[in-house]
């Protein structure tokens, strides 16, 4: 895959460390780190040097970032905060490129570091959990409840000003011609050095410049801040994008570097030995220039300007995608060059570039695996195609839909082949989704009919590992327990075959997400109710929420799946609960203990806050998890079955033990209250995560656009669509798409064309 950001992210951050700049004779060194057990020696050895790549001004606090690239070419992002007063830098290593969030987190850490080092550890401990799912928020209170850190998982929207600090810095530092010149150089895969005296500005500009390539990404040497000892990397014969501190640049013999493009940020000046700009059509340049010249541009105007320019250049790739029934989808380079009559020479060059090839490979893989894709780029492509009136948007979509249909008719063997080659994380997700491929709506409606009565055999559904759909399959709860609260559910409780139930939960989850303000704690009964059992189940494998033990997440946790597994609530923490809380916590813990046998996969965490006052459990876990695992509901936990309450709970913590069975109740409630439709609607939206909220022709080939007809298009692409649904989680923020259309979700898909192969991956 072209992306160089890891798709498996276990923790919000990997490592925290405090680093001393050293002295005149001493190299920078790590003062302390968390977790102590962090082992990557190679990284530990290099972090201090990267953190202090050059002398830093002593006048203010610096925020900057650097990147380390592993041998498999994946990035590790390192965020730094250097405070001259403390004479040390705080550094966070993460696999997530969330600059703004980590700078914020570093400020919190600095605050604690200066006041209470003891609490700092607890705080870090609380933070070092799975990153929040897209659209979700993690909130951690500290300092006796007076301060908090909250982080909202970034979505797939384009970087915007002023929220995105990198882009904001870049845009304010450079004029339009420099930005355009640099962008063109990157497209030509030149050797590019960006020079600035301040590391903060440097790293911001490098990152922002890289982001202008979206949907492509830089594939070559990438060093946002070049430490002095690595200066020879500027001599690399292959393309690079390197941020060079001015003091480091001064030690370099320019003559040795050769044909390199140099952007001097401080001087707002771009030097290039090439005439790359001449390759671009002049109207493209002028419109780009116009868009970038508005120095007051806010929002995603700047990002979108670059994106649109890229659409003009490479958006035609869609017309070069060759789809033939029963065959692997391929890309036709000649066809691509023909897509833009006025710039064929340029397209030939682009075609040879690694960033473009990588982009195409990635797209083909998504298509061939039945996942499809949709992002801002495709939306703009559709727009553009409409303008040109080539109709390519519709055409490709239709073709792909047919293709997928055929594939499905053939029993999905093709997908399977493709998927066998895909990476394991993807595999398991696809598999699960496939399993869940029965039509969602029908699953909702006809749960009782569809679900086998016998106890499910989780073993057959070994999605267990890290698939976000794993819930049902791993539910150890006796499926036939008789004390499931509401009678309606009786049938379904019998046998939770993981799949439909999972989907169900998904749907509910979404449903509540859409309709209930997540932060309206007391009222979000849907949310809460279901989450409770979740929680207990989830938490069960983990140590009780006491410091200093930290919940142990599963070994491998693809971010793809995290979304469903963790629901981090941004609910405002209720006012301090003193004594009562303590005791409740105890219950909670004991409850957890009871459930201890539950598989680890279901770990959920939510708001974690430090208790205030003196009588504490130091940490309290506030869970408001999403409502997946209806399966659980359906097979209520024997321990809790009898005690269920229907009242919406204002404070989860207080009533956790009794509320486990609630989810099922809720489910029923929805159905009976006539909200069913609604929930279905949201369900379908969900499935069509890809469906953009706009009217634009987004590229979601499997999505049926004529809503009225949806019902009639029975069978067809639903399972493939569900793949897509499941897999697209790798793209953050999909959940943010407002519900737009109903969809095939509602098709009564009873036929399962899921080949057995899907369920037997592991």
């Amino acid at each position, binding site marked *: 895959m072209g992306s160089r950001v890891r798709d498996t992210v276990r923790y919000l951050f990997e490592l925290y460390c405090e680093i001393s700049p050293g002295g005149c004779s001493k190299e920078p060194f790590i003062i302390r780190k968390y977790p102590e057990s962090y082992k990557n020696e190679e990284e530990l050895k290099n972090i201090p040097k990267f953190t202090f790549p050059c002398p830093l001004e002593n006048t203010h606090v610096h925020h900057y970032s650097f990147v380390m690239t592993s041998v498999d070419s994946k990035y590790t992002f390192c965020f730094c905060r250097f405070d001259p007063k403390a004479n040390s830098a705080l550094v966070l290593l993460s696999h997530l490129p969330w600059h703004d969030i980590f700078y914020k987190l570093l400020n919190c850490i600095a605050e604690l570091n200066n006041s209470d080092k003891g609490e700092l550890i607890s705080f870090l401990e609380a933070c070092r959990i799975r990153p929040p799912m897209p659209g979700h928020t993690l909130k951690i209170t500290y300092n006796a409840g007076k301060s908090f850190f909250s982080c909202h998982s970034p979505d797939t929207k384009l970087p915007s000003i002023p929220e995105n600090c990198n882009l904001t810095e870049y845009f304010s530092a450079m004029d339009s011609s420099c930005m355009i010149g640099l962008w063109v150089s990157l497209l030509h895969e030149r050797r590019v050095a960006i020079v600035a005296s301040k590391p903060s500005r440097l790293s911001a500009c490098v990152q922002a410049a890289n982001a202008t390539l979206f949907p492509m990404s830089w594939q070559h040497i990438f060093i946002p801040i070049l430490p002095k000892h690595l200066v020879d990397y500027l001599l*690399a*014969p292959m393309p690079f994008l390197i941020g060079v501190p001015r003091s480091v640049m001064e030690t*370099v*013999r320019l003559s040795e570097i050769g044909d390199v493009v*140099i952007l001097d940020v401080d001087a707002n000046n771009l*030097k290039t030995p090439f005439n790359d700009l001449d390759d671009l059509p002049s109207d493209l340049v002028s419109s780009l220039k116009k868009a970038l010249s508005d120095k007051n541009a806010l929002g995603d105007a700047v990002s979108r300007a670059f994106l649109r320019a890229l659409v003009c250049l490479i958006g035609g790739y869609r017309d070069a995608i060759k789809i033939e029934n029963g065959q692997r989808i391929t890309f036709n380079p000649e066809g691509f060059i023909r897509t833009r009559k006025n710039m064929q020479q340029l397209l030939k060059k682009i075609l*040879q570039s690694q960033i473009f090839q990588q982009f195409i490979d990635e797209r083909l893989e998504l298509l061939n695996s039945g996942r499809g894709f949709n992002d801002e780029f495709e939306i703009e492509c559709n727009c553009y195609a409409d303008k040109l009136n080539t109709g390519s948007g519709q055409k490709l979509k239709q073709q792909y839909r047919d293709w997928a249909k055929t594939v499905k008719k053939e029993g999905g063997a093709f997908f399977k082949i493709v998927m066998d080659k895909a990476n394991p994380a993807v595999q398991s997700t696809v598999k699960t989704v496939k399993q869940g491929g029965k039509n969602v709506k029908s699953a909702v409606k006809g749960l009782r009919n569809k679900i086998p009565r016998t106890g499910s055999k989780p073993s057959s559904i070994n999605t267990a590992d890290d698939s976000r759909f794993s819930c049902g399959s791993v539910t150890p709860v006796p499926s036939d327990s008789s004390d499931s609260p509401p009678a309606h559910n009786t049938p379904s409780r019998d046998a939770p075959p993981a799949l439909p139930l999972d989907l169900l939960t998904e749907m509910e989850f979404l449903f509540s997400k859409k309709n209930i303000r997540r932060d309206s704690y007391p009222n979000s009964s849907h949310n809460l109710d279901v989450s409770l059992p979740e929680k207990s189940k989830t938490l069960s494998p983990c140590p009780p929420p006491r410091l200093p033990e930290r919940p142990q997440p599963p070994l491998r946790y693809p971010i793809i799946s995290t979304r469903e597994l963790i629901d981090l609530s941004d609910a405002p923490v209720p006012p301090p609960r003193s004594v009562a809380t303590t005791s409740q916590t105890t219950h909670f813990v004991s409850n957890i203990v009871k459930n201890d046998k539950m598989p680890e996969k279901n770990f959920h965490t939510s708001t974690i806050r430090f208790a205030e006052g003196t009588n504490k459990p130091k940490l309290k876990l506030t869970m408001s998890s999403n409502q997946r695992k209806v399966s659980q509901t359906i097979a209520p936990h024997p321990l809790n079955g009898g005690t269920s309450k229907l009242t919406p709970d204002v404070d989860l913590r207080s009533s956790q033990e009794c509320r486990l069975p609630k989810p099922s109740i809720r489910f029923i409630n929805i159905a009976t209250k006539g909200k069913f439709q609604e929930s279905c609607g949201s369900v379908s939206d969900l499935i069509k995560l890809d469906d953009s909220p706009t009217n634009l022709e987004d590229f979601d080939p499997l999505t049926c656009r004529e809503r009225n007809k949806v019902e009639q298009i029975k069978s067809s692409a639903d399972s493939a669509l569900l793949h897509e649904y499941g897999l697209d989680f790798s793209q953050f923020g999909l959940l943010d798409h407002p519900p737009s259309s109903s969809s095939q979700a509602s098709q009564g898909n009873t036929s399962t064309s899921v080949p057995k192969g899907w369920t037997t991956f592991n």
Partner: protein
Amino acid sequence: MPDMEDYKFLFKVVLVGNAGVGKTCLVRRFTQGLFPPGQGATIGVDFMIKTVEVDGEKVKLQIWDTAGQERFRSITQSYYRSAHALILVYDISCQPTFDCLPDWLREIEEYANNKVLRILVGNKTDREDREIPRHIGEDFAQRHGMYFLETSAKEAENVERLFMEIAVELMEQAKCKELPKYDGSLGPINGKTTSVGDGSCCLRS
């Protein structure tokens, strides 16, 4: 620091060839793990530097290994663009690595500066299960205008010689071409140092 070293020429050498033919071993053997000690893990691309002396002049060889690029389906022009020499490596005990040579060559011809110095290297002469006779390799090299050498990274056989000959050849080229116009508009030219670039002329073909 190396950039402060006193040397007169700097040449960039890139190794290509199938995975497992011993590219990295060749480089390591030659540089003996000298500078820089494996930044591969933090930069994703590794290179080695060794300064040698030719005719009393110091020549700095910077040797870039393509190992990090193998994730690419193909290595495109960007990779070869500013290399002075390309070493194409195969494994004498592994026919498939030899069979791939035409593919590599096609790529090189398509993307690399056509004046780049090219060397064909059959590595692993220490192996007893040779599959490609020496003369086959030689023929191939001759047909395609390349230097040819067989080496053993393991036994350090011909490794030193390989890089020394490259240094000598590149220096010849540099001298007969005078200064390349690499630097163009880019700042002051340090008269003491030169690199061979697009302008190098003494090409053997």
